[in-house]
């Protein structure tokens, strides 16, 4: 608050930094936060490239031998093909008088010759190894990152949108609307979360978009709680009443005046949900309620890994785990840093 007296006339009036600018300053000072931001951005660039098909577009191509080991382990010793039956000696027995197919062999051989068949050479080793079909685990992990992160982010957006909208309505209007929404909230929270997910999964079916809807429709309650409290607090503040005095309508007050002032809470809730939903997608996909078999996610990779472990092929498990651990750790640390930067009152409580 500077008065006209101590501001030199020649200088333009200094604008006080906004809440986002201040938060960015605090955030930049947080080294852990900055590093995790870089890691998360790198993942987003990677999944953008994967979504465009520039990298890992051919993850379904069977480029290596089944269970090809990672390159740095070296190729496995060549095994002599098992000979179950002894190779017959002597001239082949002529069966043409008893073989009913004999007259057509010549015709088939001719037609086979017309079709060019091309078996590409299969790699003995792959950068991070191969899976049961010889698909590149690195490409799968990248493509899986795209599906898993996309599911997590989209589901979190759905849940946050529902929670924010209902929380805003309940907190701002109170009364009958508020009571009704509290009732809906009580109903949703009285059913154990996993059962609610199962019930939705039973009726909505399978698929990537279905997982997004299931997680979004069942996961909004925490955001609702938080936003309702914020809107109750803000609805009676002076700036909102001032907005009312100059003729701002209800919806304008709720979403143009209050919402920007609580948007930092929304952002933190959103990023908390992303981590939770990525983990949930992994487990749902393993249980067969998530990503279908023609797509790949970290969850389906881990699902395949259970049997591979028994055969000693650990690389798919390691790749999916490493990708997921790096992203989730970075995202969790980023969320902590965001919360510290956006809400300095909370700093040090946890």
């Amino acid at each position: 608050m500077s008065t006209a007296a101590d501001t030199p006339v020649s200088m333009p009036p200094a604008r006080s930094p906004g809440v986002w600018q201040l938060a960015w300053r605090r955030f930049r000072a947080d080294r852990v936060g900055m590093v995790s931001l870089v890691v998360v951005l790198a993942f987003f660039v990677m999944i953008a490239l994967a979504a465009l098909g520039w990298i890992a577009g051919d993850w379904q191509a069977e480029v290596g031998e089944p269970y090809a080991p990672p390159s740095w382990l070296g190729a496995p010793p060549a095994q002599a093909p098992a000979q179950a039956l002894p190779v017959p000696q002597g001239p082949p027995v002529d069966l043409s008088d008893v073989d009913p197919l004999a007259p057509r062999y010549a015709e088939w051989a001719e037609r086979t010759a017309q079709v060019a068949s091309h078996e590409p050479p299969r790699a003995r080793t792959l950068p991070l190894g191969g899976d049961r079909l010889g698909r590149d685990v690195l490409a799968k992990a990248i493509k899986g990152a795209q599906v898993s992160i996309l599911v997590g982010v989209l589901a979190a957006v759905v849940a946050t949108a529902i929670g924010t909208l209902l929380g805003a309505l309940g907190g701002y209007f109170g009364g009958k609307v508020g009571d009704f929404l509290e009732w809906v909230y009580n109903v949703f929270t009285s059913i154990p979360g996993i059962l609610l997910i199962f019930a939705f999964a039973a009726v909505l079916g399978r698929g990537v978009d279905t997982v997004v809807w299931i997680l979004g429709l069942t996961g909004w309650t925490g955001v609702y709680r938080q936003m309702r409290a914020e809107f109750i607090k803000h609805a009676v503040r002076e700036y909102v009443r001032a907005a009312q005095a100059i003729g701002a309508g209800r919806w304008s007050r709720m979403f143009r005046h209050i919402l920007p002032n609580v948007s930092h809470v929304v952002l933190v809730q959103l990023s908390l949900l992303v981590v939770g939903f990525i983990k949930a997608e992994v487990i749902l996909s393993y249980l067969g309620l998530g990503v279908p078999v023609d797509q790949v996610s970290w969850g389906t990779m881990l699902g395949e890994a259970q049997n591979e472990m028994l055969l000693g092929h650990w690389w798919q498990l390691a790749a999916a785990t490493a990708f997921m651990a790096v992203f989730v750790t970075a995202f969790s640390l980023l969320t902590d840093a965001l919360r510290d930067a956006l809400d300095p009152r909370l700093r040090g409580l946890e």
Partner: protein
Amino acid sequence: MAAYLLRRLWQMIPTLAGVILLVFFLFKGFGGDPAEILAGLAATPEQIAAIRQQLGLDRPLPEQLWIFVRQILTFDWGRSWATNEPVASLFASRLPATLTIMLPLLVLEVTLAIPLALAVAAVRGSLTDRAIVIVTTVAMSISFLVYIIVGQWLFAFKLGWFPVQGWSDSPWTNLVTYAPLPVLLAVAVSLAPQTRLYRSFFLDEIGQDYVRTARAKGLSEPAILLRHVTRNALIPILTNIGAGLPGVFVGSFLIEVFFSIPGLGREVLLAVNRSDYPVIQAVTIYLAVLTMVINLATDLLYKWVDPRVVLK
């Protein structure tokens, strides 16, 4: 007290009604046609019509809702569509396996996490504390699935300390032979987040004025932590345990699926995969009731733990 209890029970009715409406309209509005699911692919239209009439699906919606409510109140859900087993007996036959896993898990979790969290809170701010926070953050970012895959492979397959999986008819064999590996893995996984959470509860209390007073009058640090802080931190810990209790009855479905334990969680998942609606509906509604009852019990427990709490 009695008035409080009555009012709380009275307040459960609208919530329960909401749960019933949610489940009813969810399955009615989005689920497939029960008659077609039951009749199978090779059914004639007459068969489907007959099943529809048998289930009351040809009646108006309010009447169907009434049939549904009557099923809930009389505990008469008929038979499972997939196995023809009475739904009511499903609970009785599947719950023991779930509890064999979940009760030891709950007891171990609480008895290990509280002292651990207290110990971490006692050395707050030190290098050990920071290191533990970082390790738990990383440990929590790895999926539960990875821990059980690796745990089963290492302890059961490689080292042979436990059976890989299995279940028997004898509760004792189950408890000492088949339950230990799943229970230990689940405890190991849940210990990190629990410790972190309880640590924050302890830290909240350590900052309070009464702790400073206790220090000022010369109490030793262990006495402060054990006698004063622990008792006060027990309230949020109780809430947390109470919130997790209903989960005990569904079981850790992932563990049950992974280790092929014939519990309730695995049964629900099978029901989801087989579109066995009565089983899913029954489990959902009764567990919602159970959750409400447990929440009430937790609130009553507060009064017992903390005499200052006034039940309104």
